[in-house]
Every structure is written in structure tokens, then in C-alpha cells.
């Protein structure tokens, strides 16, 4: 596109109606800028961000790691080496070996198989919970900012109310209250659903405040005013002009929320409120391993490594998205 335009520029400038600087500006500086700084494609802001992201090694590595972990969790059924619930009494607390890659736990269960099944819970709770909480937070935030006045006051105070509860304690409370009620219906999945819903329900106030403050400054931009003066409906301004201009920064925050959820899910499990035994879960594995730290440190080391990898990967992914959407903040 740009090529075609550069080629046609000189002839077009002669057709240009006005005289003066604008013409020389169009003929003189535009091609220079395009050949030297812009990539040779039509550069849409989203396309530019994507290109910058692809050049960021750490972010691309994180994305690959996350995709691999998601793949392992999703297809754990085909990748396990032993039944994760299968007990092997003759082989308790064993070290890593060709049969049991990550060793076995105190009941002789295969740690590798338990681990890849255990990945499912933090990933589902982290990613799904974040998706839901991000949508809730963004919509409430952008509506509060755009509507302003009374609506803003109501929504902001409601957010403050939710925010005032320590999110972790609220999650702990709901899980201990409703956890057992769900178990008969959904079995092991009940806790996962509950955790996802609870985290989604308590995680959004932080994002709502973030989106609200972004939208407050964005709505003062003239293109929003211009949209209003050309008769655009409020809903359309929200979803077409305000939210798309914040998507990058929202994604960055979402990356950090995933980390927060994964971390808290593990802590809940360590407290015995997450996924119930014998079902595997990273946090549960870590908790069980910590009891046997004295004679088999591997039982702590492997789950810890995986939790660390998940948290680091999402953190670097968030950083990468930020650098991609806001290159000025970089260096």
C-alpha cells in the first residue's frame, strides 16, 4: 500500500489544489517518514503492536511456555505416564526415575502425572476467572467514567464496597461456606467452578478503577467529543471509541490478575480449601510435598518450579504486551 502511494505521490501533488507548505510537506516529509520509520505494510496501531510483540524475545518465550502448559493440561489424558490416583505401596517417596519422571509422593502416586493434571485447576481458575473479571471490571469502569455524575458515584461506591473486603478472605469464606454444597453435584469440578466464580466476583474492583481512570482521561479527547457531535450513541462510543483505545493496557492488567489468581488458588489449596484430595492440583501437591520435605525434597521442588514458571510467564507476557502497546514506556 505504502509503496503504491509513494509511487503515486509526485503526480498527485501536482494535482493538489492548494499552494503553499502543505503541498511541499506532503511531497517532502511524508515519503521520508514512511520509508525510514514505518514498516512497508499498512500500519494499523494493532498491527504495529503485534509486530513489536513478536520482536520481544522474553514475551514470545512466555507465550510459548503458557501455550505448552495449556496444551499439557488440556491433553493430560494422553500425556500421563501413570494413573494420577493410582497408589503404589512398594514405591513411596521415590526419587525421579525412568518410570516416575518426577518421583512419587507419600502414597506412591506418580508425581509427573499428578502434576500435569494438577495444572488444570490453576490455569482454568487463572485464565477463565481473569477473562470474566476483566469483562465485568472494564464494562463497569467505562460506564461509570462515561456516564459521570450520579451513575459514576453509585458504581464507584459499589466498587469501593467490594474492594474494601479483602479479596482473599472473601474467597476463603465463600469456599468454606459453599464448597461442600457443590461437591455432590459436580464432584471434583465443583471446587474449580466455585473458585473461578469467586475469584471473578472479587477480582474486578481493581480493574474497574484502572479502566475508569483511563476512560476519564480518554473521554476528554476530542475524537470522543467529535463522535458525540456527529450523533453517535453512547453505547457505540463506549464499545467503539473508548474500550478499543484501552485494550492493550487492559490486557497488561489482566496478565497481572492471572498471576494474582494463580497464586491465591495455590494458597487456598495449601490451606485445604481448594481442590479436595485425592484430586491433583498444584497447590495441593505443594502442600503434601511440604509435609515430606525431610525425606524427599523433590515433592516440593517440582510443583514449586511449575507454579513459578506459570507466574513468571504471565508476568513477562503482561510486560511484553505493555511494551508492545506503549513503546514509549520502553527504556
Amino acid at each position, binding site marked *: *500500500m505504502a509503496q503504491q*502511494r509513494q509511487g503515486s505521490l509526485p503526480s498527485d501533488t501536482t494535482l493538489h*489544489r492548494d499552494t503553499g507548505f*502543505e503541498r511541499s510537506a506532503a511531497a517532502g516529509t*511524508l515519503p521520508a517518514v514512511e520509508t525510514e520509520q514505518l514498516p512497508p505494510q499498512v500500519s*494499523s496501531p*494493532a498491527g504495529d503492536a503485534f509486530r513489536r510483540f513478536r520482536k520481544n524475545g522474553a514475551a514470545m518465550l512466555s507465550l510459548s511456555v503458557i501455550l505448552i502448559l495449556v496444551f499439557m493440561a488440556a491433553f493430560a489424558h494422553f500425556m500421563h505416564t501413570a494413573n494420577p490416583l493410582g497408589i503404589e505401596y512398594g514405591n513411596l517417596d521415590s526419587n525421579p526415575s525412568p518410570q516416575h519422571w518426577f518421583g512419587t509422593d507419600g502414597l506412591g502416586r506418580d508425581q509427573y502425572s499428578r502434576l500435569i493434571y494438577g495444572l488444570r485447576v490453576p490455569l482454568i481458575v487463572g485464565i477463565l476467572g481473569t477473562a470474566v473479571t476483566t469483562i465485568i471490571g472494564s464494562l463497569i469502569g467505562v460506564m461509570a467514567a462515561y456516564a459521570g455524575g450520579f451513575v459514576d458515584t453509585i458504581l464507584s461506591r459499589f466498587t469501593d464496597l467490594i474492594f474494601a473486603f479483602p479479596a482473599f478472605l472473601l474467597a476463603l469464606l465463600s469456599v468454606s461456606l459453599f464448597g461442600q454444597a457443590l461437591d455432590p453435584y459436580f464432584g471434583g469440578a465443583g471446587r474449580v467452578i466455585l473458585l473461578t466464580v469467586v475469584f471473578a466476583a472479587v477480582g474486578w474492583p481493581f480493574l474497574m478503577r484502572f479502566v475508569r481512570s483511563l476512560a476519564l482521561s480518554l473521554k476528554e479527547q476530542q475524537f470522543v467529543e467529535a463522535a458525540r457531535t456527529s450523533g453517535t450513541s453512547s453505547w457505540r462510543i463506549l464499545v467503539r*471509541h473508548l474500550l478499543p*483505545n484501552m485494550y492493550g493496557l487492559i490486557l497488561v492488567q489482566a496478565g497481572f490478575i492471572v498471576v494474582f489468581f494463580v497464586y491465591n488458588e495455590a494458597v487456598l489449596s495449601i490451606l485445604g480449601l481448594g481442590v479436595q484430595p485425592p484430586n491433583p492440583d498444584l497447590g495441593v501437591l505443594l502442600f503434601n510435598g511440604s509435609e515430606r520435605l525431610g525425606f524427599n525434597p523433590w515433592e516440593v521442588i517440582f510443583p514449586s518450579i511449575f507454579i513459578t514458571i506459570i507466574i513468571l510467564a504471565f508476568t513477562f507476557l503482561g510486560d511484553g504486551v505493555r511494551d508492545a502497546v506503549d513503546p514509549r514506556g520502553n527504556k
Partner: protein
Amino acid sequence: MSQATEEHRAQHTPEADRNGDHLLLVENLRTYFYTRAGVVKAVQGVSFHLDKGETLGIVGESGSGKSVTAMSIMRLIPQPPGRYDGGCVLFRGVPLIDIREQPGRDGRTQRIDRSAPESHMRSIRGGDISMIFQDPMTSLNPLLTVGKQIAETVQEHMHCGRKEAYDRAFEMLDKVGIPSARARLKDYPHQFSGGMRQRVMIAIALSTNPDLLIADEPTTALDVTIQAQILDLMRGLSSEFGSSVILITHDLGVVAGLADRVAVMYAGYIVETGKLDDIFYRAQHPYTHMLLRSIPRLDMDREDRLIPIPGSPPDMLRLPPGCPFAARCPNVREICRQQMPPLDPIGAGHLAACWNPVKEEAA
């Protein structure tokens, strides 16, 4: 292309000749802001009219109520804190704002609001009245292509398909003098210079064949050479499209080049209004007079000095009673500090609000 618009107009103009020949009639418009610090009377009783094909320049310094007047016509003042406290805006006979206060039966003042519904305003905005803004760098959504931004406005108001809308977008970009318009439809705002973006804004504004174009400081953010081109473009296109123009600016030079009539605003009042020549050569209000003497002119002698207006504009939160210019006025009298003078005719179509206007002087 304009058939849909015409039908729409016929629908919405049942009393077409209610305001005579005037396309736009603003009467005694009052827009106040009720802030925590107090009431800001941004526009207090402004009246003017605009005929088809005419260009009205509204001149005044920052905070004189120019932009609030424009946004009131569009009915886009955020409420709260803003509030229309009275007056009416008739656009082709349809009351965009019509607010009267009458003593009710129980003795309390009753607010009667006969303004058009919001749904009607949404079709007016962008369709019949368009607006151009000061800063072309932020007036376009950075994430949408220029073609899309024009086409969306066209689709919204002309009720046509995507294809026609894009054809119209191309036609408009070409009309505002953007080279290789067809290819540039797919470009994003950051690929245009400031002057080019203002051309795009003009293309969007005129794409729906509006009857009225409100330009709020359209050249303030541009280089002087680009300013002249943009003004040329606005002059040419508004006559080609038959649009009336309200040109809001603090730059008397811009007004001199474009306007048929001028209204000078100060502290929320129109203090003087008249034909272009009335204002530039027969100014009677001391403010207009001093404003003209404070800017350089080509016919000045080299020894002539520019005379600044002493003092500063009044605090809009604590307006003194009487004429707001009294504190800076060399012709001030006792009555000026007590009572606001009415906007009285002093010539054909020339009105000034002053108790003690400047006499014709030998110049």
C-alpha cells in the same frame, strides 16, 4: 444520495417557516454551570440569528462563552453541572432548546421545557449540524482508518450501505484536497499531518450535507500557512455545499477573511454584533474598539503602537453587577456598574450593548 436526508427533513420540519427565513435563531439563551465553587454564568442571554448560506463569526477571548454557545446549540453541555436556564434555539423552526420559566399557580416559578427529544437531536448532530474542532491531532480516533470514520458518519445519517458510504468518503477526501484519496482511505490518522487531519475533519463534517457547520477555533492549532489553506477550503466548500457556518475564534484576522457578520462576546454576553464592516470600521462598543486597536494591521504606520486592553477578564464566579467590561472600560460611567446595558440597534443590523458607546472618531 440526499433523498433520505430530504425525507428525513420533511418529517422533522412540520413548521418550516416558524422562524421566518432564519436557518438558526437563538434567543436569550442562558447556559449556567452549577459547580461546587458557585454558579458560572457562561452564557447569559445570548441572541443571534443565522440565514442560509451565511457565515457568522463569534469572536471573544477564552472563557467568554463562545464554545459553550456552540455546544448549547448542539445540546451537548454535560448536565450536571451544566444547565440550560432559559431561552430557545430554533433550527429550521424546530426547538432544539425551548425553556421558559413562568410563575405557576402556587406562586413558584415553573420550568416549561419544550425542547426536541434526544432522539431527534441525535439525527440533527452530524446530519444537519456538523462540527469541526480546534485540535486535529486528537479529533480522530487513532484506531480506526480515516475512510471508516467518514463512512460511519455517512452510514449513520444518510441511511445508505457500506459501499455508497465508502464512495462518499472517497469523494469527500478528494474534495478536501487529499492526494490519492482512494488509497488514503485505508490509512490511519497517525499517517496524516495536522493540516491533513483538519481536512479529514472537514470531510467528515461536510459528508452529510449539513445545513450548518460549526467550526470551533478550526485553525488555532495549525501553522499560519496551513491556516490560510484551511480557511480557503472552508470558504469554498461551504458555498459549494450551501452550508451556513458559525465560525468561533479569538482571531479577528480569521473572522475578517471568512465571516459575513460578526458577534463579539465578552463574559457570556454578546456585546456587539453587526456586519463585518460595521465591526471592523464602525465599532461602537469600547471592548470591540480596544480589541481592534490591540492587534497589528497592515495600514498602520510604523510609529503606531499596539494598545493592549488594561486589566483582565472578570472572574466568572464573581461577576460584578452591571456591565462586565466596566472595570476595564475607559468610557465607564456610574450606570455601567449598576445595570447591564441592553443590546440596542445603533445602525442597520448593527447592535451594541453599551451605555456610553465610542463616538465616531477621526481616524
